[in-house]
C-alpha cells in the first residue's frame, strides 16, 4: 500500500496575538507547527501502513523552512518526505495549491491512498483536499472519522455529517480528508527522531513536477485578496453578582427576547 499524506506548516494558533496598538497580527516569535488536522492524517497513514504494509510519503508545498514539518512527519512514522518549493508558487490560492500538489503526486506516480487533514488552521478553507482529488480525477471521501475496512481495492469509511455519519465505500486509489475523531496521534519515537535528524527530504521545484507555469502561484489563482483587516476584538461585558437565584432571574430577564 503506497500512502501519501499531504501536510501544511502553519503558525501555532496559541501564539497568534494581536498587537493592541497597531491592531495587526504579531508574527514575531510565532512557532511553526504541523497543521493540527494533518497530525491525524499522518497517524492514520502510519496505522494503515502497520495494518497493510507499504510506505508513507509525506508531501508538503511551502517555503524552504517547511522542511521542518516534514522532519517531524518522519519522526512520527512517515518513510519518505517531499518538499515542493519554488518562488513560482507564491500567491497560490486553493486552486493553484491543489494543482501544484496534484502535479507532485503525479510525479510520485504510484499511490493507493492520499490522506489530508480536513482543513488547515490558518486558512480554514477545507478546499485543497477535494481540489487535489478533482485534479487527479479520483474518488474522495471528506470528513472521515473512521476507516472501518481497507484492502488493496476498497475502503469502507465513516464520513462525519452534521447529524451523525454516513458509511461510504470507495474504490482505491482515492483521497480521504480526516477529522480529529479518527485517532489519537502517537508521540514521536526515539527511533523516529533519529531518522528525522538524518533524513533528507526530496526537494522539487516547479520544473521538477512538470507543472504548467500559467497554473502556478498568483497567476494560476482565480481569486485575489484585495483587503486584509483586523476585526473589532470582542470585549468583555458585564459581570453579574448576587445570589444564585437573583443572578438567574436577572439573566433570564436580559435574555428574554432571545429565547422566546
Amino acid at each position: 500500500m503506497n500512502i501519501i499524506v499531504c501536510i501544511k506548516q502553519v503558525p501555532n494558533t496559541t501564539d497568534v496575538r494581536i498587537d493592541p496598538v497597531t491592531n495587526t497580527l504579531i508574527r514575531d516569535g510565532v512557532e511553526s507547527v504541523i497543521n493540527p488536522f494533518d497530525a491525524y492524517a499522518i497517524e492514520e497513514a502510519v496505522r494503515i501502513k502497520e495494518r497493510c504494509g507499504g510506505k508513507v510519503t509525506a508531501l508538503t508545498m511551502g517555503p524552504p523552512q517547511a522542511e521542518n514539518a516534514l522532519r517531524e512527519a518522519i519522526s512520527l512514522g512517515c518513510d519518505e518526505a517531499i518538499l515542493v518549493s519554488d518562488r513560482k508558487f507564491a500567491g497560490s490560492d486553493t486552486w493553484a495549491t491543489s494543482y501544484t500538489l496534484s502535479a507532485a503526486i503525479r510525479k510520485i506516480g504510484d499511490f493507493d491512498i492520499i490522506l489530508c487533514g480536513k482543513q488547515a488552521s490558518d486558512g480554514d478553507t477545507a478546499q485543497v483536499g477535494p481540489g487535489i482529488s478533482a485534479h487527479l480525477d479520483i474518488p474522495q471521501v471528506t470528513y472521515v472519522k473512521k476507516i472501518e475496512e481497507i484492502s488493496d481495492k476498497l475502503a469502507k469509511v465513516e464520513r462525519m455529517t452534521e447529524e451523525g455519519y454516513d458509511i461510504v465505500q470507495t474504490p482505491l486509489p482515492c483521497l480521504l480528508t480526516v477529522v480529529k475523531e479518527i485517532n489519537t496521534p502517537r508521540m514521536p519515537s526515539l527511533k523516529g527522531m533519529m531518522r528525522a535528524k538524518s533524513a533528507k527530504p526530496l526537494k522539487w521545484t516547479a520544473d521538477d513536477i512538470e507543472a504548467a507555469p500559467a497554473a502556478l502561484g498568483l497567476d494560476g489563482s482565480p481569486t485575489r485578496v484585495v483587503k486584509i483587516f483586523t476585526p473589532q476584538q470582542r470585549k468583555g461585558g458585564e459581570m453579574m453578582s448576587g445570589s444564585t437565584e437573583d443572578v438567574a432571574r436577572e439573566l433570564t430577564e436580559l435574555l428574554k427576547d432571545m429565547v422566546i
Partner: protein
Amino acid sequence: MASITILLEKCTGCTLCIKACPFGAIHMANRKAVIDMAKCTLCGACVTACKFGAIELKQDAGAKKDLSSYKDVWVFCEQKKGFIQSISFELLGEGRKLADKLGVKLCAVILGDGLESKMDELSWHGADKIYLVDHPALKSYQDDPYTEVLVKLAQEYQPEIILCGATTIGRSLVSRVAIKINAGLTADCTELDIDLKERLLLQTRPAFGGNIMATIITPNHRPQMATVRHKVMKEAALNKAHKAEVISKRYPEEVFTSRTRLLDIVAEIGETVNLSEADIIVAGGRGLGGKQGFAILGELAKVLGGAVGAARSAVDADWIPYSHQVGQTGKTVCPKLYIACGISGQIQHLIGMQSSKVIVAINKDPEAPIFKVATYGIVGDVFDIVPALTREFGRLLKK
C-alpha cells in the same frame, strides 16, 4: 511569473506596509521598505495599505477574458431526505440582495429524488428560476454525481455567481466543481457584497482563526463561487405569491454514476438540534467534571430548544462525543446565544464561538479568559447556576 517590487523613489519609509502585512514579511532598511521574499505570499495587503503607490504587484494576467455571457446568481440548495436545509433559505435571502444589485435573476439549483413538491418552497423564498435535476442517484449526497451534474449545469447556463453553504456537503462538492470548471472559490464567507463598477463579488471571510479578515475577489474567472457560513445571513422572507420558473433537466445515465457507494446514513443527534443550525448553544468544559455535568446542561438546552456544545477537554475526557466539540479542531458556530459553562476559554475554543451574538460565561475562576469575550459573566458554581437558569427559563417559557 508574478512579482512584487518596492519603488524606492516613492517609498517614504512610513512603515504602513509593515503593519498591513499579515505574514511579517516586510521590514525597513535605510528608511525604505524591504520585502522578505521567503515570507511574502503576494497577497497584496501592502499594496492597498501604501498611501504613496510605492509597491507594485505585477502578474501575468493573460488576455482579459470576455465574461459578459455569465449572468444570474445561483444558490445551491441542499436537501437531506427530501427536506430543504435551512442554510438554503439563508443563501436565498443573501442571493436576492446580490441579484437585485446586479439586476439579474436569482436561481435555485436543487438535486435530489422526488422533489417536485418542494418547488413552491423555493419559489416562496424568492427564487426566480429553479434548476431541478431529479434522479434516484441524487437522493442522498454523493461526490461524483453531484459534481458531474453541477458542472454540467454551470457550463450550460453560465451563472456569474454560485453560493453554497459551508456545510459538510457544500464544502466537499463545490471544492471539486471549482477545479473542474476553472472557477474561483472562496471558503466560509461571513459577508458578501457587490462592486457594481466591475461586477465583482466581494467575499469577506475570517482567516487565522478569526484573527484577521480578508476580502477576496475573482477578477478574471466565472462563475465566482463562495461557500457561506451557517447562521450569518438572514433567511429570505416568505412570499407565497412569488412563482419561479422551473427548469427540469435530464441527463444521460452515465452522468449519475458514482465510484463511491453510500451504504448507510446514521443519525446520532437525538432530541437536541444540530450544532451548526442551533440558535442557542449551551456548552460545557472541564469545569463540568464529568458526564453528569452534561446531563444538567442538556436540561437547560432542552428548555431553551438549543443544542449542547463542548470544549475539547470535555470531549477528550470522553464525557461527550466529538460531534459536539466547538473550537479549532471541532466546529465553528455562531448562534444568537452561547452559554459557556465551566469553559476556561482557551484560544482554540474562542476561535470556534467568538462570533456568537451574545455570550454568557459561567465559571468559578474570575480570571478565566472566557470572561474577556463574554457579554454577561457570572463567577460561580455551574452546578448551582445552571439548574437555577433551567428553572427560570422554564418558568418564562412555560415548560
